[in-house]
């Protein structure tokens, strides 16, 4: 049997990779890609805790499904924003989208 | 009817304020509407207070028509209203004078709406002081009265009105700081502001307060109260706001100022100082008597020195109110004795009487001022043939002010002198000098205005009088005053009975 710790460490690693993507990529779309990785790592955790806990409690899976929905929504809105910004400013580089600064 | 029966006092108190609010929402434009509405509205409290007067049972002790409403529970203050013979007299005076003053203000043409609103608010403020049985409420109304008066002087006054109104406001407010502090102290000490409870406990309170002996504390608080009320009365040497304010105020403002506002101070003496500080009043009665005598004598002298007719009348108020304070001082020194009762009877009646005659005098000065646009006595002279009716009324009212027997002023002055003589003989004797000069300045006023050769400036030119006779509205203002002056002068029992029974029970 695979111990729980493996799943958790795997999820942590995936989370960190996603985080690195979010922090480091210049392209806004790539940042969103990183976010997707992070969400997935969370979902792995949720599924793992469900499986290693009381399987009759469906909270973990339900939560995972809701995360799917949120992820879908996030991607839809995020990409729409990226496209909108791109249309107006002709760039998708996150560093250059800084008109909200002081 | 049942509602009216059980809420008489609050109706009297708040009808003017309500009317003021209604006037606020009346459409602009027609001055006549405001005037008549305000007059009508001020008539309601008068009718209601007559109702109270006739239902009032003078033989019953304590307060009547009491009403208590929740107001500020957390600090033990409630909207507690009630009248006894002392305050009822003052309430009646207020509700009589206000409609008359509003009637007298019909000649105001500038911003009538605001004027009438302020006037009605003023009435509520004054009535509140007389009805309040809660110290905090007392103070609130005490200050409420100031604001409309300030604006009345400041907005509708004559040339020097800014100075006068500011002096009036700052002086009175400054004086009432000590009062506020004293009231706070009592409220904190007893955890209630109810006058009856505090009166019962404070006058015999002997424990230390914050490590200070009660007597010391009371002495300080006593003077704080005294100064607040002394400024309002006004007692010499706190009186100099009065000539300025009275002189600069519009006619009706002066009427109310002299007629009612000054009584607030004297009422404070009677309602708060004597019951709350009997010991201190006894100790310091001498000082109070000195001030009262000074007010009588110096007020008369200063009045005599005036060339401004209105200022002359204004100083006469100092002189007359001095008798009130003299009576109070005498009563403070010998409270409980028949002499003290007589002195207080005189003092309270003098308050009422001065309200009538001073209001009348100020109104008459206003009447002549409206026609001549001068108050300088030297510019009048010999006007009697031009305005015989006015002249007659002026002489009549002047004589009431002078204290001619047969008119109201005499009864009260005599009672004060009679009551004060065995208690404070020296001061009473000195005060007679003031009484003598009362005659001097009153006669000076009549002499300079009515008598003597006609000042050619006012002479009828081409068959046309430059100076018009007093008109019907103005006569209507004077008739009730004169009737009361005469009535009290001839048969004072109807009012003195109420006062006397209250005085005997209270002091």
């Amino acid at each position, binding site marked *: 049997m695979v111990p729980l710790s493996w799943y958790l460490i795997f999820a942590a690693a995936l989370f960190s990779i996603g985080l690195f993507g*979010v*922090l*480091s990529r210049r392209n806004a779309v790539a940042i969103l890609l990183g976010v997707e990785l992070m969400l997935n790592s969370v979902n792995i955790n949720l599924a793992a805790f469900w499986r290693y806990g009381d399987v009759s409690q469906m909270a973990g899976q339900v939560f995972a499904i809701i995360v799917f929905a949120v992820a879908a929504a996030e991607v839809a809105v995020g990409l729409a924003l990226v496209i909108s910004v791109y249309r107006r400013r002709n760039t998708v580089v*996150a560093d250059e*989208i*800084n*008109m909200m*600064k*002081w | 009817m049942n509602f009216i029966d059980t809420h008489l006092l609050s109706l009297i108190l708040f009808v003017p304020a309500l009317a003021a609010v209604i006037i606020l929402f009346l459409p602009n434009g027609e001055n006549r509407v405001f005037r008549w509405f305000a007059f009508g509205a001020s008539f309601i409290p008068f009718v209601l207070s007559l109702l109270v007067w006739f239902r009032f049972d003078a033989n019953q002790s304590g307060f009547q028509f009491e009403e208590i409403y929740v107001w500020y529970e957390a600090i033990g203050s409630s909207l507690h209203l009630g009248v006894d013979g002392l305050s009822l007299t003052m309430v009646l005076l207020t509700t009589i004078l206000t409609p008359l003053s509003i009637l007298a203000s019909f000649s105001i043409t500038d911003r009538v709406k605001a004027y009438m609103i302020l006037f009605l608010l003023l009435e509520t403020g004054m009535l509140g002081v007389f009805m309040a049985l809660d110290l905090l409420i007392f103070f609130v109304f005490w200050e409420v009265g100031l604001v409309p008066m300030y604006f009345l002087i400041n907005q509708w006054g004559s040339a020097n009105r800014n100075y006068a109104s500011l002096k009036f406001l700052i*002086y009175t407010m400054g004086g009432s700081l000590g009062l506020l502090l004293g009231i706070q102290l009592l409220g904190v000490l007893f955890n209630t502001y109810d006058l009856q409870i505090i009166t019962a406990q404070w006058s015999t309170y002997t424990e230390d307060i914050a490590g200070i002996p009660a007597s010391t504390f009371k002495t300080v608080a006593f003077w704080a109260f005294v100064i607040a009320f002394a400024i309002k009365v006004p007692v010499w*040497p706190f*009186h*100099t706001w009065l*000539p300025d304010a009275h002189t600069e105020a519009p006619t009706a403002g002066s009427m109310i100022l002299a007629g009612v506002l000054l009584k607030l101070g004297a009422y404070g003496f009677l309602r708060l100082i004597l019951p709350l500080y009997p010991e201190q009043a006894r100790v310091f009665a001498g000082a109070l008597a000195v001030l009262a005598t000074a007010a009588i004598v*110096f007020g008369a*002298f*200063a009045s*005599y*020195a*005036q060339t401004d007719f209105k200022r002359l009348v204004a100083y006469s108020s100092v002189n007359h109110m001095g008798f009130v304070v003299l009576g109070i001082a005498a009563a403070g020194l010998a409270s409980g004795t*028949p*002499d003290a*009762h*007589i002195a207080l*009877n005189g003092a309270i009646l003098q308050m009422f009487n001065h309200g009538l005659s001073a209001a009348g005098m100020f109104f008459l000065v206003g009447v002549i001022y409206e026609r001549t646009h001068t108050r300088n006595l030297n510019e009048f002279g*010999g006007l*009697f*043939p031009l305005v015989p009716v006015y002249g*007659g009324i002026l002489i009549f009212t002047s*004589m009431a002010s002078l204290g*001619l*027997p*047969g008119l109201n002023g*005499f*009864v009260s002055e005599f*009672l004060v*002198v*009679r*009551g004060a*003589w*065995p208690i404070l003989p020296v001061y009473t004797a000195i005060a*007679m000098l003031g*009484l*003598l000069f009362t*005659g001097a300045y009153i*006669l*000076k006023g009549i*002499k300079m205005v*009515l*008598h*003597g*050769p006609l000042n050619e400036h006012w002479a009828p030119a081409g068959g046309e009088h430059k100076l018009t006779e007093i008109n019907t509205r103005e006569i209507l203002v004077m008739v009730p005053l004169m009737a009361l002056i005469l009535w009290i002068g001839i*048969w*004072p*029992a109807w009012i*003195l*009975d109420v006062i*006397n*029974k209250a005085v*005997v029970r209270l002091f």
Partner: protein
Amino acid sequence: MATELLIWLIPLPPVLAFFLIVLLTNRNKALSHTVGVGAAFLSWLGSMVVFVRALGVEHLGEHPFVSSVTWLPLGETTDTYFDIGILVDPTGAAVLFFVAWTIFMIFLYSVGYQNFGQPKGDHDQAGLPPHGATVEEHGHRHRVPSVEPMYSRFFAFLGLFAFGMYVLVLSDNLLTLFVGWEIMGLCSYLLIGFWYAKPSAREAGVKAFMTTRVGDVFMLLGVAYLYSATGTLSFREIFTEGVLHTLATVPSGVLGLSAAGLIGLLLFIGAVGKSAQFPLHVWLPDAMEGPTPVSAMIHAATMVSAGVYLVIRMFPLISLDPTTMAIVAFIGAFTALFSATIAVAQNDIKRVLAYSTISQLGFMIAALGIGAYVAAAFHLITHAFFKALLFLGSGSVIHGMEHGVLHTGDHKVDPQDMFNMGGLRKKMPITFWTFLIGGFALSGFPVLTAGFWSKDEILADAFGHGHWAVFITLAVAAFLTAFYTMRQITLTFLGEPRTKEAEHAQETPWTMTVPLVVLAFFAVTAGWVGIPEHFPALGGLIPNWFHEFVGGTLAEHPEAVEFSIWPLLTSLFVALGGLGLGWLVYRNVKTPAEDRLQIPVLKNKYYFDEIYDYLFVKPAYWFAETVIYKFMDQGVIDGFLHSFGPVTDRFGSAIRNYFDLPVINRFFGDGSANVTYWFGGKLRVVQTGRIQQYLMFALVVFIAVGAALYFFLLA
């Protein structure tokens, strides 16, 4: 009608007339005087009925007519109420008698004096005496007297005055007496200043009011003192043995007087003011500015008598303290002599009478001071009749002279100056004869006239009780009285007319002469009721009724003084001597220059007006204006108040400059802002607008905080 009720009603008609005239009928002259005279008549009628009924009561002194009602509720029980009421005892009845007569006569006289029925004046205006009217008759114009413009008002004032006098006489207590007293004071003021447009009249009115008010405030104190000492002001309650005894024994603490003495003195000062005694006499001569009926009524017969009446009323109290009595006697005697000397040098017909009035009132006061109660009351009554007569006579003379003035049209001629008269006895016979009777009564012409009997009684009392100083002073005064009276009669009526105006003087209408005749009757007969029983020849023919009647007022019936020939001889001598000397000296005098008694000091009334002006009036005004108003109120008090402004301003500026600006503003206010600004400036580089950097910061903080939490809390 019950007598008490009738007494209550007596004062009412005049006051009703006052209100009626003022409010309703003042435009109609005829109606006004009808109302006025009618009211006076009703009061007169009532008074006469009361008087007659009073005569019918035995021992009226012990059982007077009384009635009272509660007036002022004072104190807890009904006993402490202040009652007012009426009282008619013998003295009151006697006074009521003469008051009613004189008032009625004077009302009647006023109709004529104020020229009722004459046309309206050409240039008359309210506030000035009428100047005459031009009428056309039978084709030629001539001037006639014009009616008084304020005719109705005059009757209104008279009515109010009459009310005051009746109230005074009928009161059973000092307070209502004082009410009447002051109402009369007001009317006196209004009537003296009746022609108010004349500055002299205006000043005279104020002077009269103020001078009497000096007395009044003392009197008010006396009343208050008496009231507080006894708890009552009712005469009948005060004049009981117990009360009087207490008053006499309690010390007042002032000048070593007993309470009774001090009260008496205070009340007496009131009387001094009202009865124009020295030193408050100055107002009365000036009061002659008023119309003559006013002078007659107020300043001769009634109001000035009120002072004496007060002393008579309060006699049981005043007589308790010998010091007070001595003061009263001194003031009276001194005034009697002092004003008689002034009267000698006056040329104005009314002023002579005014000083004579002061002098005669001095007689009465002096009489009271020596305890001659009955004599004083007697003289009061006789004097009221003959002095009213004299005044009305002088008014008639003036009126006649004014006719002459109108005729000649020379308005510079003073119709009141006696040197402009002369020989009027032929022109105005009724006036002359009545005036003569009045003058002789004043001089004390023996046996016939009332003045003789009353004055003689005073002298007899002074002599009999050994008051030599008073006796001599009064005797000299009486001599002077006779002298100046004869001077007046001589200058006015005897000899030949000295001016054209006097030649054209006319007898006055019946409304004026009838009162003269009536009063002349009383000027003669009023004395006959008080002839001493032991008087040679006449004594006992008519019983000394007056002494019995009036004396009955007092609890202790005063003994009639023992008859002595010396005072009688003195009376005879001073009266006849004075009259004779007066005639001798003045029968040939034509101009003031020939009059050797025009001594400046006398003519100028011993400069009292000037002295008072310098001593009291001017300093009072200076004190009022300069000291009290300008210095104290505007200078010290307002200065003090105004100093609050600058002081507060300075204090505020100091706080602002040395605390607010550097500490609060610079350090805390600006300082904190500056620090924030600086800090923000440094920090703003962080705000790159780059979302990834924000996230990094967040993470750094998160990791740092998380690590810290972990190590410090969990580990």
